[in-house]
C-alpha cells in the first residue's frame, strides 16, 4: 500500500539557519498522528513544506506517491492561519473563496461543521474571538475531502469547550482513509485520539512510535514519553 505521506532525507535552511535536518518519515493512510515538539522545533515548517506553502527544501516529500508540488497540494488540507484575508471579510466570503480554490471543498460538510461548532458565518473576521477563529479554521480545513489533513496547533490558547468541540468534529468528520497530522506542544487532551506520535527535536524526527507501543513497551503515557525524550531520560539507543 502506498504511504499517505513519505518524506525522504528532507533538509531545509532558511537564510543561513538550519530548520530541519535529514527528516525521514512514513505515515500510512487512515492514521491520526501527533506531531510533538517544543516551540521553534520546526513543526510548523515541516507542515508548510508538506503542504507546499514553504518551498526549496532538499529531499523528497510524497503524498500518496505524488512528489510534484502542484498536484501534491491538491491532496493536502492545511489549517492556514487565514492570512491574506481582510479583517472586514465575512466568514461566508472566505468560504466562497475556499469553494472556488479547492475542488474538493464540500459545502455540505462545511454546513454540518459550522453548525456543530456553533459558528455564525455572517460575522466579520475581525469580530471573532480566538476560540471561534480556531474553530472556523478547523471547519474550513475539514470541509475539504483531502487525503491528508495538517492541523497546526489547533488547540493553542482556546477554551476547553471549544477544544472539546474541535476534538469531536475531528472524530466525526475525518474519513476513514484520510490521514491527519496534529501538531501540539501539549498533548494530554488529544492523547486518546492519536494512533502514532512523531517527536521533533534538534531539527529532526527523533522518535516515531505507535501510541500503544509507547504505553505497552515503555509503560508511559504519551505526555510522559514526550517529556522523557525532551529531558533526555530516554536515550536514542532505547528508541
Amino acid at each position, binding site marked *: 500500500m502506498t504511504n499517505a505521506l513519505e518524506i525522504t532525507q528532507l533538509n531545509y535552511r532558511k537564510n543561513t539557519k538550519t530548520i530541519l535536518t535529514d527528516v525521514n518519515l512514513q505515515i500510512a493512510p487512515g492514521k*491520526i498522528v501527533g506531531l510533538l515538539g517544543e516551540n521553534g522545533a520546526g513543526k510548523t515548517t515541516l507542515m508548510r513544506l508538506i503542504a507546499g506553502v514553504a518551498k526549496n527544501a532538499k529531499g523528497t516529500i510524497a503524498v500518496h506517491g505524488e512528489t510534484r508540488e502542484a498536484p501534491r497540494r491538491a491532496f493536502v488540507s492545511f489549517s492556514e492561519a487565514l492570512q491574506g484575508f481582510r479583517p472586514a471579510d465575512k466568514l461566508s466570503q472566505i468560504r466562497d473563496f475556499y469553494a472556488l480554490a479547492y475542488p474538493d471543498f464540500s459545502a455540505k460538510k462545511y454546513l454540518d461543521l459550522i453548525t456543530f461548532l456553533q459558528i455564525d458565518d455572517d460575522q466579520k473576521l475581525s469580530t471573532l474571538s480566538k476560540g471561534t477563529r480556531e474553530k472556523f479554521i478547523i471547519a474550513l480545513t475539514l470541509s475539504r475531502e483531502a487525503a491528508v489533513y495538517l492541523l497546526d496547533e489547533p488547540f493553542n490558547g482556546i477554551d476547553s469547550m471549544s477544544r472539546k468541540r474541535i*476534538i469531536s468534529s475531528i*472524530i466525526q468528520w475525518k474519513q476513514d482513509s484520510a490521514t491527519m497530522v496534529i501538531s501540539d506542544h501539549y498533548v494530554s487532551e488529544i492523547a*486518546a485520539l492519536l*494512533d502514532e506520535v512523531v517527536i521533533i527535536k534538534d531539527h529532526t524526527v527523533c522518535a516515531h512510535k505507535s501510541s500503544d507501543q509507547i504505553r505497552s513497551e515503555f509503560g508511559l503515557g504519551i505526555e*510522559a514519553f514526550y517529556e522523557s525524550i525532551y529531558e533526555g531520560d530516554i536515550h536514542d539507543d532505547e528508541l
Partner: protein
Amino acid sequence: MQFDDKVPIYYQIKNYLYHRMVAGELGLGDKLPAVRQLAVDLTVNVNTVQRALREMIAEGYIAPQRGRGNFVTQDAAKIATLKQQLTTTYIQDLYGQLHALKLTDAEIIAEIKAYIQHRGDADD
C-alpha cells in the same frame, strides 16, 4: 469516560464494554452503537474502537451482522463466565491488598461484612 494514558486505549475500551455487558446495560443480543458514535462518545480514535471490537468479535462477545452492525452475543453462559472472571479479578486484588496488611482470612471476611453492613446503614 476518563482513560488512563499509560494503558493502551483499545484495552480500556474492551474493559468498558465488558463491564456494560456484565451489568446488563448492554443486554444479550443488543445492538452496539455504530463505531463512529462509540468513538465520539468515548472521545477516542475510530481505529482504536475498531481494534477493540475486532478483538471482542474474535473472543465471541460480539457478533457482527453484515450490513446491520454489531450485536452482543446471545450466549448467556458466556456473559456469566465473564462476570465470574471479572469478580475473581477484583476479589484477588482486594484479597491481595488486605492480606499484605497482615489481616487473617477471618478478619478479611469480617471487615467486608462490616463494611457492607455499614454501607447499608448509610444508604437508609
